[in-house]
């Protein structure tokens, strides 16, 4: 009797530990990938950031400069310009996409084949490669033969040289970011709207609330947590995006559409000034992390009240 119980316990323990071993083994390949392709390069990048290292001049770092690279970056005019451009492009494109996406989600909300079809069409840019979107818009915006200026010409307006002037180029990049980014907001807000019970809106209608008031007081508060997440997703994706600037303007004319991503890419992988690029990328990282923390904080606060 006694032996059979201890045997039971022992076998049960053995059973459990073997199972846990199996589960642990399941995680190992993913762990290896994350450590090798993410954690290790991140650490490596910190090390590079403190070095004076231009790959075209030497195969290894020439000397340690401590925080010198960071100081140089922060006082660099191109960095400040890129930071400003990133803030402008992300700020405008995200706010416009969010308003537009939310509005479209409301308009296509009701059931029926027409709304269904509209939603399907409206989310197409989501699966268009950003590189292709940039290329496509570069053709559209061509001052001589592009569709935009051809149409403007037909109604008697002399279209601007979109990508050749600094303000117009900045507007163009923002427009393309809106084209790419709006579908995601539409999709997420549509999904959030379906979770709002109809009875709530009917009750409001009976109480005499018009469409706008019920949006403001019932739906908007309910979708706010999702809206915040959508803003964060869009803001970070737009901030980090390299593809559109790369294919539309190559940062030009001059430095007028240099963004942080483009600046770091250019410094690191074209000029091969690795130390400077790594330091700049860590400053960029701090900005992105702040944005992330801020959204989660706002979301947590909103849900508590």
């Amino acid at each position, binding site marked *: 009797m006694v032996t059979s119980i201890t045997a039971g316990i022992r076998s049960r323990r053995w059973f459990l530990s073997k*199972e846990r071993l*199996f*589960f*642990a083994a*399941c995680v190992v*390949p*993913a762990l290896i*990938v*994350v450590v090798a*392709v*993410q954690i*290790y*390069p*991140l650490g*490596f*990048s910190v090390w590079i950031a403190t070095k004076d290292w231009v790959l075209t001049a030497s195969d290894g770092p020439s000397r340690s400069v401590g925080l010198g690279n960071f100081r140089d970056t922060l006082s660099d005019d191109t960095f400040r310009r890129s930071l400003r451009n990133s803030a402008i492009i992300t700020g405008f494109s995200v706010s416009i996409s969010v308003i*537009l996406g939310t509005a*479209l989600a409301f*308009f*296509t909300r009701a059931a029926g084949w027409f709304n269904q079809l*509209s939603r399907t*069409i*409206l*989310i*197409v*840019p989501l*699966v268009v*490669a950003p*590189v*292709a979107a*940039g*290329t*496509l818009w570069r*053709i*559209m915006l061509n001052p001589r033969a592009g*569709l935009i200026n*051809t149409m403007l010409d037909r109604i008697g307006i002399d279209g601007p040289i979109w990508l050749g002037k600094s303000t117009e180029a900045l507007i163009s990049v923002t427009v393309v970011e809106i*084209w790419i980014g*709006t579908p995601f907001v539409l*999709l*997420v807000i549509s*999904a959030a709207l379906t*979770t709002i019970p109809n009875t709530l809106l009917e009750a409001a209608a009976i109480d005499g609330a018009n469409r706008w008031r019920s949006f403001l007081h019932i739906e908007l508060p309910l979708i706010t947590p999702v809206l915040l*997440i959508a803003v964060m*997703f869009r803001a970070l994706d737009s*901030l*980090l995006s390299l593809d559109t600037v790369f294919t539309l303007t*190559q940062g030009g004319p001059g430095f007028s559409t240099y963004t942080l*991503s483009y600046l*770091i*890419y250019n410094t*690191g*992988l074209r000029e091969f000034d*690795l130390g400077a*690029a790594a330091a700049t*990328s*860590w400053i*960029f*990282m701090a900005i*992105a992390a702040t944005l992330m923390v801020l959204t989660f904080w706002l979301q947590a606060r909103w849900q508590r009240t």
Partner: protein
Amino acid sequence: MLLMVAISWVVVPLVYLFLNSIKPSLEFLSTPPTIFPSKITFEHYSKAFSDPKVSRLFKNTVLVTGITTLVTVVVGTFAAYGLSRLRLPAKWLGFVVFIFLFIRFYPRVTTVIPYFLTMRELDLLDTIWAIILGHLGITVPFVTWLLLIVFNELPKEIEEAAIIDGAGPWARLRYVLFPLVAPGVAAASILTAFLSWNEFLIASSVARREAQTLPIGVASFVTDQGVHWGPMSALAVVMILPMILFALLVQRHLISGLTFGAVKG
């Protein structure tokens, strides 16, 4: 009204791109430029497909996307199953999830430079393996995170019944749980395929010639001269069209995967 404007704002550029890809080269130079081609031609496509460079771009992209998706789904499913059943302390699990989300959102240019150096050291530069490994670094944590939530939401009773029947962890995954999480796995693999097919930053940093993929090919048309618009548009269509068709085909899974993070996370 707004809806109509929005729909044309999405559709017009895509149709215009397609029209440009079937327009004879000479028409790009006419003044005023034609919008609709006067004669339909497939010269840009036939030229593109007979160019060994373009077929290599296509082959590389298919290989990178296929291998990345396959490996991600297998590794991610196992990792999510393991993580959800290890009974880790909540704090640990929270930390793991935080790391995964961080990887999704931090500026990727930070790791691209050291990654490039590491691949150079390992002599993997300009191979599709460097691109695939780079993509796995993004997709594996993302898919693991997504499936972790799916596994955690399954009712415990089903699994307990299987344990009583004497099914080991592998049999439970294979015969009991996998059929239940299959829709989540499908959504995850679709998202992975899109990401890998369209990814530009990592691919362009490690593949300078032989291993180039379609995004790099499309981005390399930097010239603004009208004569190149035909081939450029044709290549962009070749890149975009399969993804749009694929997206329409798997729309439901795609949407559930995309909205998942925001609505549940």
